[in-house]
């Protein structure tokens, strides 16, 4: 569906059009383009702002998540009144007020193998603004299978990466990182701090790559990974080549729907062999005066509440080094923030180090603190 630029378009986008590299022809290309942004988070928000403002004709936004108050320091499309709303829908509303001349589609779904191929086939470019490896590999593989270029952005603390995959037969994400990093999942599970300006910068770089691909101008970051460090202001470009990883994805097209991409923190499925203990049962043991060793497997940088259990802190990634300090008899309760990492740690220690006495705290420190607060409130109510 291609509609000609209107007088209003020519007026609104005149600063684009004034550039020789754009002109009315380039603006028409922008109007004809269809871009799918996956994740309306730290990267997606700034990228969307510029893509919408530039007059890209059709923009799809995929996000199943809801706006949380902690998102607002970096996800600049949302305001306080959006907390609790779906991100794709809230972003569409905001973006439509920024630019009513284009088509914006909110897709309130979680990207998965079932919907990825169909979604991708309706767009020219995919922008990866996700926050987990699982989605990044689904995007990478679905893009190879549908022949769609991917504008990739990712951040870690003060550093960012930007690249373009699968562009004009160029290399893909798997040419750099062939396999899903299952072994390191424990390392990547905790929430990391970030200054909002970093995804702002990286998301803007991603929007810039989208513009260059559509306008067919400049040097696209295909076969090149750009690294940005906002502390030193150093950027570097790393060249990389296509490998047979792309061929392998194409050859195993049939297995795309059944591949296991699902190893993210939220979607874990640890075998049921791990025994869990509820916060109520922990209290019962404590009331009985039983001896319990508590092991806290969160990172040392993660905050603690004063009401928390006093556990021996051994971050999950270092557990194997401190294995001798974990008792092999009696009650040992492993806990983390929400009960996901602790379950993985218990599983590993059971399977590989023959522990039989470990329990994972169901709901983690979060559940414990909630439980303690509720008990305190009940006591206060009884007293008053």
């Amino acid at each position, binding site marked *: 569906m291609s509609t000609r630029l209107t007088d209003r378009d020519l007026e609104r986008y005149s600063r684009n059009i004034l550039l020789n590299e754009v002109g009315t022809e380039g603006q028409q290309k922008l109007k004809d383009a269809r871009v799918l942004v996956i994740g309306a988070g730290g990267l997606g928000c700034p990228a969307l702002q510029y893509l919408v403002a530039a007059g890209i004709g059709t923009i799809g936004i995929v996000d199943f998540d809801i706006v949380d108050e902690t998102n607002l320091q970096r996800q600049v499309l949302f305001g306080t009144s959006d907390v609790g709303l779906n991100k794709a829908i809230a972003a569409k509303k905001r973006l439509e007020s920024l630019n009513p001349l284009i088509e914006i589609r909110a897709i309130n779904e979680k990207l998965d193998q079932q919907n990825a191929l169909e979604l991708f086939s309706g767009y020219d470019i995919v922008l990866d603004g996700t926050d987990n490896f699982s989605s990044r590999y689904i995007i990478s593989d679905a893009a190879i299978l549908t022949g769609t270029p991917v504008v990739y952005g990712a951040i870690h603390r003060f550093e960012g990466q930007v690249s373009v995959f699968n562009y004009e037969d160029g290399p893909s994400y798997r040419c*750099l990182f062939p396999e899903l990093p299952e072994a390191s999942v424990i390392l990547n599970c905790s929430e990391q701090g970030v200054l909002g300006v970093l995804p702002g910068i990286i998301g803007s770089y991603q929007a810039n790559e989208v513009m260059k691909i559509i306008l067919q101008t400049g040097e696209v970051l295909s076969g090149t990974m750009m690294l940005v460090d906002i502390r030193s202001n150093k950027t570097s470009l790393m060249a990389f080549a296509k490998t047979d990883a792309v061929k392998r994805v194409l050859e195993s097209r049939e297995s795309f729907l059944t591949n296991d991409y699902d190893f993210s923190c939220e979607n874990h499925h640890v075998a049921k062999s791990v025994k869990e203990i509820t916060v109520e049962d922990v209290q019962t043991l404590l009331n009985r005066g039983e001896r319990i060793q508590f092991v806290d497997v969160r990172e040392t940088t993660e905050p603690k509440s004063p009401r928390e259990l006093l556990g021996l802190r051994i971050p999950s990634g270092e557990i194997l080094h401190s294995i001798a300090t974990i008792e092999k008899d009696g009650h040992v309760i492993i806990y983390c923030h929400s009960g996901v990492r602790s379950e993985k740690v218990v599983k590993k220690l059971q399977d590989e180090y023959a522990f039989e006495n470990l329990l994972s705290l169901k709901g983690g420190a979060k559940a414990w603190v909630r439980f303690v607060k509720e008990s305190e409130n009940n006591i206060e109510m009884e007293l008053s």
Partner: protein
Amino acid sequence: MMIKLKYHGVVSEIIGTEVEVLEVDSNSSVDSLCNMLNERWSKLSTVQYKVAVNHSISNTNSILEDEDEVAILPPFSGG
């Protein structure tokens, strides 16, 4: 010979520094450098990372040269 190492992302957190000058045997390969690093920091072996030599992602059998700039690049997941 000496090489200049730059650690990125979670790798720099594991190692506890971002840059380091390291002495390695002449004719060391990228692979032998990785083995050495993984031995020094066992946690590193759980991370999938790429090695860029002088701004180009290298094969594991590439041979390092004196004063090479070597970057250790893990994937980032955040967004």
